[in-house]
């Protein structure tokens, strides 16, 4: 059956553009009105079976259950912390989701566990738009970030930092011996043996951010990292 669609796959569409009519299902970044499907964001249109969707080219982070995020503590409450995760809503980390025993206000001093300004790596455990997203740090690898550097990027550029099948990020790890953790909210944590190594990764990510639209990016970043490393070593 030939149902009407109005764009080629991966064509750029803008909010309000008519994408398809009739029996299609409205997917990400689209809406359906009177049997017609329109785009809600600037992006690339896609068709998959009966589903029409748009891959947004500009968006902001919206929490999703299971996401790993990196945020900073902005408020310490009586039994919880408020964490800025660069989303429309600040997230809530309850004491019970932070310590491995029942929380007792008499005994457990929250600021000594996490204080305002601390950086936290956490996972989203609940979010339904009606309340603040809930976080947990009761899993290995999660919790207060004690060292390293952070870089912020817009979430739509995360795939570029990771590269095709992880090519970019594994190259960066290999060449600099740094640990790189990409929060789904666009906050990237870089920790290595020396600040110099970390700085190199930070520079590389900034370059990826700026030149994200050019081709041959992985090669150029590899070259840049290698030559920077060379100059550091020879100095």
């Amino acid at each position, binding site marked *: 059956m030939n149902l009407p669609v109005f764009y080629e796959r*991966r064509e*750029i569409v*803008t*909010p*309000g*553009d*008519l994408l398809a009519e009739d029996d299609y299902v409205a997917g990400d*970044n689209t*809406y359906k*009105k009177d049997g017609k499907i*329109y785009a*809600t*964001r*600037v*992006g*690339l249109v896609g068709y998959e079976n009966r589903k029409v969707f748009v*891959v*947004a*080219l*500009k*968006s*902001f982070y919206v929490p999703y259950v299971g996401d790993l995020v990196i945020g900073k503590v902005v408020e310490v409450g009586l039994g919880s912390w408020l964490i800025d995760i660069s989303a*429309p*809503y*600040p997230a809530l980390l309850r004491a019970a989701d932070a310590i491995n025993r029942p929380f007792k206000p008499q005994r457990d001093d929250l600021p000594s566990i996490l204080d305002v300004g601390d950086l936290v790596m956490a996972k989203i455990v609940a979010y339904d*738009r*009606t309340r603040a997203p809930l976080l947990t740090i009761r899993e290995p690898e999660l919790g207060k970030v004690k060292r390293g550097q952070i870089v912020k990027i817009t979430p*739509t*550029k995360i*795939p*570029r930092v990771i590269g095709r099948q992880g090519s970019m990020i594994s190259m960066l790890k290999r060449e600099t011996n740094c640990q790189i953790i990409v929060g789904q909210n666009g906050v990237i944590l870089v920790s290595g043996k020396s600040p110099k190594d970390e700085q190199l990764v930070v520079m590389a990510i900034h370059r990826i951010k700026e030149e*994200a*639209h*050019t*081709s*041959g*990016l992985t090669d150029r970043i590899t070259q840049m990292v290698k030559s920077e490393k060379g100059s550091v070593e020879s100095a």
Partner: protein
Amino acid sequence: MKVPKKKPKKLIDEKDVRLDGRGLNELRPIKIEIGVLDNADGSAYIEQGKNKILAGVYGPKEAHPKHLSIPDRARLRCRYHMAPFSVDERKSPVPSRRERELSKVIRQALEPAVFVEYYPRTSIDIFIEILQADGGTRCAAITVASLALADAGIPMRSLVAACAAGKIDGRLVLDLMDTEDKEGEADVPLAWMPNSNAITLLQMDGSLTIEEFEQAVNMAMEGCKKIHELQKETLKAKYVAVKEEVEE
């Protein structure tokens, strides 16, 4: 200070040409840029004739003060503001009554397009600065602010295009500039969402018969259609670069 200028005797000459050389049904030249501000989540700049307008969007973000948040949707806030040097006589930077009314009608012209129900309790802030004014700034402001919203990645039902029609020297014309607005008989600013045929801003001052009004609205809508095409082209051109990034 205002340098005295001779008031034009006629706004339209015998050959149907207006003071700035345009035909009756012609828009002023329009130039749009997207993503012009570094700190804003979305931004755009427009020049329409001598109008120069900048729009920046922040959000959705936590609403401040908190009691202003709405439990079931985002609060759209809008500030239309004119720079003191944007007009002949210096304008006090304190928002005037006119600016506050325009902030409201511009907000309500954009709100039907935004999926405010997706982000309850947050605020989406739209800041519009008129750097130079030459008539029709509210319409150009809506045109550019809707692009700034799209650039901020805020989900929308449609872009909003806006344009005025009016009556000068007894004739209906499109997109009035300042002199035509001041010396003319009527002005009908209109904002429009093409895909649902929705009029989201409509004001009128002056004097028109019902028939003239209907013609003016139709004329303004034709202007909006052209502006909407331009909005789409500009957005696409901006994001072609971004597209390559994702595709590589």
